[in-house]
C-alpha cells in the first residue's frame, strides 16, 4: 500500500487529523495508568493468606471481666464446640485484616531495645491452645506450641508475653535470617527474648501493606494461656455452614456472657470489608476506561464518517480509474493506522510522564514497560474497529459518483 498519498491528504486536513491523534494520545495515556492501577488493586485484593479462609468464622467478644478470663475462655470454647458443624475452635488476640494490631519492634542482638534503629516491627498474634488448628496455620518447619508452652505463658497488662517460644512466618524468617534456618534463632527486645520453634506459611497482618509484601507478612505467633487478651474466637467449619454458625455462635456467646458484646462474621466478610474501598476503586477505574474507550471510538467514527462524506467524489474518481473496493477500504484503514500510530507514540510518552508524576505525589510504583505497548495495541485495535464502518461505507461508493457534480 502506497502511503504517500495518505500523508498528502492528511496534510490538507490537518486539524481533524491532529484532533484524532490528540484524542488517541490522551486515551492511551489514561488507559496505561488506569489499567496499571487496576492490576495493582486486583493483586492486592487477592493477597494470599495461609490460613483456612474459606472455612473460618470469627466472633469477637468484648467487654468481659479480665479477672474471670481463666474460667470464661474454656467455658466459651466448650459452648462453641457444641454448635453443630463446628470442626475446631480456638481463641486468639486478633485475626488477619481485622485492623486490630499489636506490633512490637524486635532486634537480633541480645541487647536490642525496642527503640533501636535496626529493629524490625512485627505483629504479635497470641494463640490459645487449639487456635493453630482452628486457623489452619500451615507448618513449614519445626513445631507448633505444645501444652507446656501454653501453660507456661502469661501476659497480664504487659506489652510483651512471658514465654520463651515463638513461631514466625516464612517471610519473617527469610527477611531476618537470610538463607539460614530460622529454627533456634532468637528475637530480642530487652529484657524479653523469644526462640523460634516453628515457621509457618505466610499469614497476613491485621493491616496489610499495599507497598510491600514483606511488610504485609511480618507476623509472629505466641502461645498464651486463657487470658483476656484472647478476645477473638475462631471457628472452623464447612464453608456452607458458616452463616448459620456465626449466628448461633454470636447468640451462644451472648447468652453465657450477658455483660459482654459478641460480634461475629465470616472471614470472607472480614476480607471483603478490608478491601472494599480498593475494590470499588478498581471498578470505578474499569468503568472510566470502558466509557473513555467508547467515547474515543465514537469520536473516530464521527470524524471518519465526515471525512468519507466529504471525499465521496474523490473516492468515486478513484473507483472510476480502477481502484477496487479493497483499495478504498485499505486506504481508510491505513490512514487510521497511521493516525493511531502517531497518537499512541505521543500517548506512551505521556503515560510514562503521568506515571512518574504519580510516583512522586502518590503511593505508586513504576509502571512495568509492557503496559505501554499493551495499551498501544489495544488502541490500534480500537481504531481499526471504529474505522471499519465508515471505511466500508466509503468502499461502497459507486464509481458513477465521479461523473456527477458534487
Amino acid at each position, binding site marked *: 500500500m502506497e502511503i504517500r498519498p495518505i500523508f498528502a491528504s492528511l496534510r490538507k486536513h490537518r486539524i481533524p487529523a491532529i484532533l484524532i491523534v490528540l484524542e488517541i494520545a490522551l486515551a492511551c495515556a489514561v488507559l496505561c495508568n488506569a489499567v496499571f492501577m487496576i492490576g495493582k488493586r486486583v493483586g492486592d485484593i487477592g493477597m494470599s493468606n495461609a490460613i483456612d479462609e474459606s472455612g473460618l468464622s470469627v466472633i469477637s467478644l468484648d467487654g468481659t471481666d479480665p479477672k474471670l478470663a481463666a474460667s470464661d475462655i474454656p467455658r466459651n470454647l466448650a459452648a462453641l464446640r457444641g454448635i453443630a458443624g463446628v470442626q475446631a475452635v480456638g481463641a486468639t488476640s486478633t485475626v488477619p485484616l481485622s485492623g486490630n494490631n499489636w506490633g512490637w519492634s524486635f532486634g537480633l542482638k541480645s541487647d536490642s531495645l525496642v527503640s533501636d534503629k535496626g529493629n524490625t516491627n512485627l505483629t504479635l498474634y497470641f494463640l490459645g491452645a487449639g487456635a493453630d488448628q482452628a486457623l489452619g496455620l500451615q507448618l513449614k518447619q519445626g513445631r507448633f506450641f505444645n501444652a507446656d508452652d501454653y501453660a507456661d505463658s502469661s501476659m497480664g497488662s504487659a506489652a510483651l508475653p512471658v514465654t520463651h517460644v515463638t513461631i514466625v512466618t516464612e517471610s519473617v524468617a527469610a527477611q531476618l535470617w537470610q538463607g539460614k534456618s530460622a529454627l533456634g534463632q532468637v528475637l530480642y527486645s530487652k529484657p524479653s527474648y523469644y526462640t523460634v520453634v516453628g515457621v509457618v506459611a505466610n499469614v497476613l497482618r491485621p493491616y496489610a501493606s499495599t507497598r510491600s509484601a514483606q511488610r504485609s507478612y511480618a507476623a509472629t505467633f505466641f502461645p498464651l494461656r486463657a487470658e483476656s487478651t484472647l478476645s477473638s474466637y475462631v471457628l472452623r467449619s464447612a464453608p456452607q455452614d458458616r452463616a448459620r454458625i456465626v449466628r448461633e455462635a454470636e447468640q451462644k456467646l451472648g447468652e453465657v456472657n450477658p455483660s459482654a458484646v459478641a460480634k461475629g462474621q465470616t472471614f470472607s466478610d472480614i476480607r471483603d470489608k478490608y478491601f472494599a474501598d480498593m475494590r470499588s476503586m478498581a471498578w470505578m477505574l474499569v468503568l472510566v476506561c470502558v466509557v473513555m474507550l467508547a467515547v474515543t471510538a465514537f469520536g473516530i467514527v464521527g*470524524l471518519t464518517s*465526515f471525512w468519507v462524506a466529504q471525499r465521496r467524489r474523490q473516492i468515486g474518481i478513484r473507483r472510476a480509474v480502477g481502484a477496487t473496493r479493497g483499495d478504498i477500504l485499505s486506504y481508510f484503514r491505513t490512514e487510521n493506522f497511521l493516525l493511531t500510530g502517531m497518537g499512541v507514540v505521543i500517548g506512551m510518552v505521556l503515560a510514562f510522564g503521568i506515571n512518574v508524576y504519580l510516583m512522586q505525589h502518590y503511593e505508586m510504583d513504576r509502571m512495568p514497560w509492557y503496559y505501554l505497548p499493551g495499551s498501544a495495541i489495544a488502541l490500534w485495535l480500537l481504531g481499526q474497529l471504529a474505522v471499519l464502518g465508515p471505511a466500508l461505507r466509503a468502499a461502497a461508493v459507486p464509481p458513477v459518483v465521479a461523473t456527477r457534480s458534487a
Partner: protein
Amino acid sequence: MFTYYLELAVRSLRRNKVLTTLMVLALGLGIGACITTLTVLKLLSGDPLPQKSAQLFYPQLDPFPLDGYVAGETKPQPIMTYTDAMNLLHAHKATHQAAMAMTNAKIASLRANAHPFYSDGVMTTSDFFGMFDAPFQYGGGWSAGDDDSRAQVVVIADFLNDKLFDGANSVGRTLRINDHDFRIVGVLKHWAPQPRFYAQELGGRSYGDGDAVFLPLHSARAAQMGAGNDNCFDTIIDLKNLETAPCIWLGVWVQLDSSSAVSDYKKFLANYAQQQIALGRFHRADTGLPDLMQWLRDEMVVPDDVRLQAGLAFGFLLICVINTVGLLLAKCLRRSPEIGVRRALGATRRTIFAQFMIEAGIVGLAGGVLGLIFAELGLFGIRHQPAEYASLAHLDLAMFAFTFVVAIVASLIAGLLPAWRACVLAPAPQLKAG
C-alpha cells in the same frame, strides 16, 4: 438576532441527530464524572470548623530517644505522652487547651436484659467543647474542677440521646459506661466535623458520624477505658498505666487568637523541649505547631484514591472536549455551502462566529443538564459504596452552579476552533461548488 441564531443552531443540531446526541452524551459523561469526583474531593478536603479553624493549633513534641533521629528530617511525633500533655495543659499559655484520646466505650442498654453496645468515645478535658464550638441541646460541658476531681460525668451526642432517651432532656440521668456509672451533664446538637480532625493519629476514622460519648480523661481512665492508639518508645512493664508509661497516646489542641500569641506559643514549646532535654527526659529538640488545615494536609487526610479519581475525571473530560471539537468541526465543515450563502448575502464573519459559538453553547448546556444527571447518578453510586464518607456525598448548590460553568466553558472552548474555521471560510468557492 440572538433568537435567530438560537433557532438556526437548534435547526442545525436537529438535522444531524446522531452526531448531536454523540456530542451531548460525551460531554455529559465527562462533566458528570468531573462533578462527581470534585464533589467528593471538596467534601473530604473541606474545613471541619470554618469559623474557628484559623485559631486552632496542634502542638507537637518529640520524647523519642536519639536513635534513628536525623536532624532536619525527623518530624516531631504526631501525638504526646501523658506527662507532656498535662504539662502543656497546666501551663495555660493559650486561650483554650484540651488533651484527648479516642476510646471504644461499652454502653449499657437501659432496657432490662438487653446487651450492652460499643460506641465511639472521646476522653478529653473541659476546654474541648468551648474550643471546638460544640453546640449543646441540653446542659453543657464539665468544668476544670470536674477534670481534677475525676467527676463521673459524661456528655452524649444527639443520636445516642435519641436512641436511649427518645430525644428527651436526659441531663441528670445516669449512663453505665464500661461498667461504671456516669451522670449525663450535657447533650450535644448534631455535631460531626468532617474530617474528624481531632481524631487524627489517635486511632479512629477520619469521616462519618460524630462520636457518641465524651468523658473527662481522668475519670474515663479510672474506668479502665483504653486509648485508640498507643505507641511506646521504651521498655514498658505495665500497659494499663499509660499515664506513667513511655508511650505517646494523646493529642493536644490549643486556641491561639493572634499571630503574636502563635509566635509566643512556638517560643514556649521550644523552651519546653529545651527544658525537658536539660532534665534528661527529651533527646530531640524539634517541635511543631501546625494550624488545623495545615495539620490535615500534613496528615494527608484525603485518601489518595479520591484525588486520583478527580485527576482521572479531568483527563476524561479533556478527551470528551477534544471529541466534541472534532465532531463540531465535522458538522461545521459539512455546512460550508450554507455558510457561503450567508456570507454572500451579507453576514459578517463576526455573525457567523457568533452563530457557531451559540450552537456550541447549546450543546454545552444540554451536556451540563445531562452531566448533572450523571453526577447525581455517580453520587448515588458513591453513597452506596462502603467508604466511611459515603453518606456525605451530596451535590450542594455551589457544585450545582459549577456544573453549568464547567459545561459552558468546556463547550465554548470546544466551539472556538470550529467557529473560527467557519468564519474564515471564503464564500466564493463554496457558492461555486454548491
